[in-house]
């Protein structure tokens, strides 16, 4: 595994989906992979993916009419992810008195440098880098998805890239 470079491609708005099932088939693999990168856990990412799609299905008439249903899908998924994090943090505090970083990435695959480096990132940095680098969202849309300002997204993504570079030994290319 080498260093880290930034290759951001703005995500293009897809054509409006004809049906919820068509939308699901078009998006679910992308969302699942993104959630896996954010959570580091396959099972959790599947549950979050289902939660998000279910939420959209229940209001599909309105979602389908949106300019970017996929953006709304990712926003919903990230909301659920944050809710789970808060619950997990509280549970951890109750048990051990302090939040421990119990992330599947950290132990999932010791051979994979990127997985371990991702696992060491704070969740928000990880989400920011996945949205901007992998999914190609601009910082404005990524900010709406994460519920933070676009400048915060840029900061989080920059911090994530710096941390990954430090971990993976790449050049400074900001």
């Amino acid at each position, binding site marked *: 595994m080498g*260093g880290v470079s930034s290759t951001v491609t703005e995500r293009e708005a897809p054509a409006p989906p004809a049906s919820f099932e068509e939308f699901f088939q078009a998006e*679910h693999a992308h969302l699942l992979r993104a959630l896996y990168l954010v959570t580091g856990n396959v099972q959790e*990412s599947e549950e979050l993916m289902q939660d998000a799609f279910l939420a959209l299905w229940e209001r599909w008439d309105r979602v389908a009419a949106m300019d970017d249903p996929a953006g709304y899908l990712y926003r919903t998924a990230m*909301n659920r992810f944050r809710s789970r994090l808060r619950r997990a943090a509280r549970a951890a505090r109750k048990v051990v008195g302090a939040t421990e970083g119990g992330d599947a990435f950290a132990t999932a695959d010791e051979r994979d440098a990127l997985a371990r480096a991702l696992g060491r990132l704070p969740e928000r940095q990880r989400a920011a880098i996945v949205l901007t680098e992998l999914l190609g969202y601009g910082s404005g849309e990524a900010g709406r998805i994460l519920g933070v300002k676009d400048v915060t997204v840029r900061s989080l993504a920059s911090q994530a890239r710096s941390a990954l570079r430090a971990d993976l030994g*790449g050049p400074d290319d900001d």
Partner: protein
Amino acid sequence: MTDLRSDLERLGERAAPRTDAFERLERRRRRKERNRRMGAAAVALVLVLGGSLAAYTVVRDETPATVGGDTIPEVAELTCDGEGMVSAASSTVTAQPEGVHLAITNVGSTPVVFSVVGLGGDGVEPGERKETVWQSAPGELGVSCEAEPLDAGGAPSSTVLTIVDPNGYFVPSALECASGEGYGSAPAYEEGATGFAGDPVQVVRDHVSGLEYDMQVERAGYPESAEPAIRIVRGDTVIGRVTLFDDGQGGWLPSAIEGCGGTLFGWSEEPTGVSGPPGPAPDLQDLCAGTYADEGRYRGTDLVVTGENIAFDTPCLVVPGGEPFTISFRNLDAGVPRNVSIYAMEPCLRERILLGAPASATCSAAKSVYEGEIVVGAAEIVYRVPRLEPGEYYFQDDVHPSAGGVLVVEFTP
């Protein structure tokens, strides 16, 4: 140098989608729908047991009108005789903009009392025809009749009417609580209490606390009802309902305020703002779950807050509305000046607490509600805070603004 995007894509491929992913989603949706129906039934049951008149409307909202036609009468004509027998000229009635009209004629020689199941009733004198209007959802409605005195024995006679709504007047307002848990309150008023004039929807927008930026406030029930029902909707889900009544002087007062778990709707004499960030809805229920589960230090009128390592030991405090309360603040940071102050909630403050925005983020225009005296640790001080209107507030250490949380002032009738 490798490309980060390619690396991420390769790593992400470890999460391979299942071939039956959509079928699994469909199964889960069916399970959720079933659970939701059971949850709605549970809410209705709780309200029925509590004696709320609203209970039946919760149940009834589940029954949509299925019959149309313009030959159906606009007023259901029923007769009661002196023996308490009731009969209807037509078993179907058309809903009107103000509700469902029932006319009861007492053809007997003794007074009778009629009851509209779950909603109420009235007395009718011999020879009298009494027309009344009811806020019943389309569907079936039971009406019974009983001769006075009511304790004379004998079961009342009853009939079932079918309400149809071909014009679509009725807008459902039944709570659709995802958790199956709801709450309701019915404020008591002094004689001569006055409300607020104007459009009932606007009155609710202005005076119901706990509204958030992504909640829609809409007229529900029948559009010209004398007792307007206003529903609060998030997305497509009804999460709250406020029923108003006329104070006799042109103002509106709430007769009932209901909400789903996780909301905190209350009534405020002072106009309230809508809270929340211009982004995804934060989960206040999550943040305050521990506080609600525990009646101890963080909830009630005698709060105990500990400050240590430039932080507070709780992100959420809950106090009852309409009562002063105390905060015993224990500053354990030796040699460090700290305090607890309270501010009106602002979207950016909420974002700071709930979404983990950077502590350096500045939140302007925060209105101070209570300023606690600064104490140098280790020390303890008791703040005596005057009563606050129901709603959300923000508490923080003014010396270290990164330490803060939400203060919820509950609605207490």
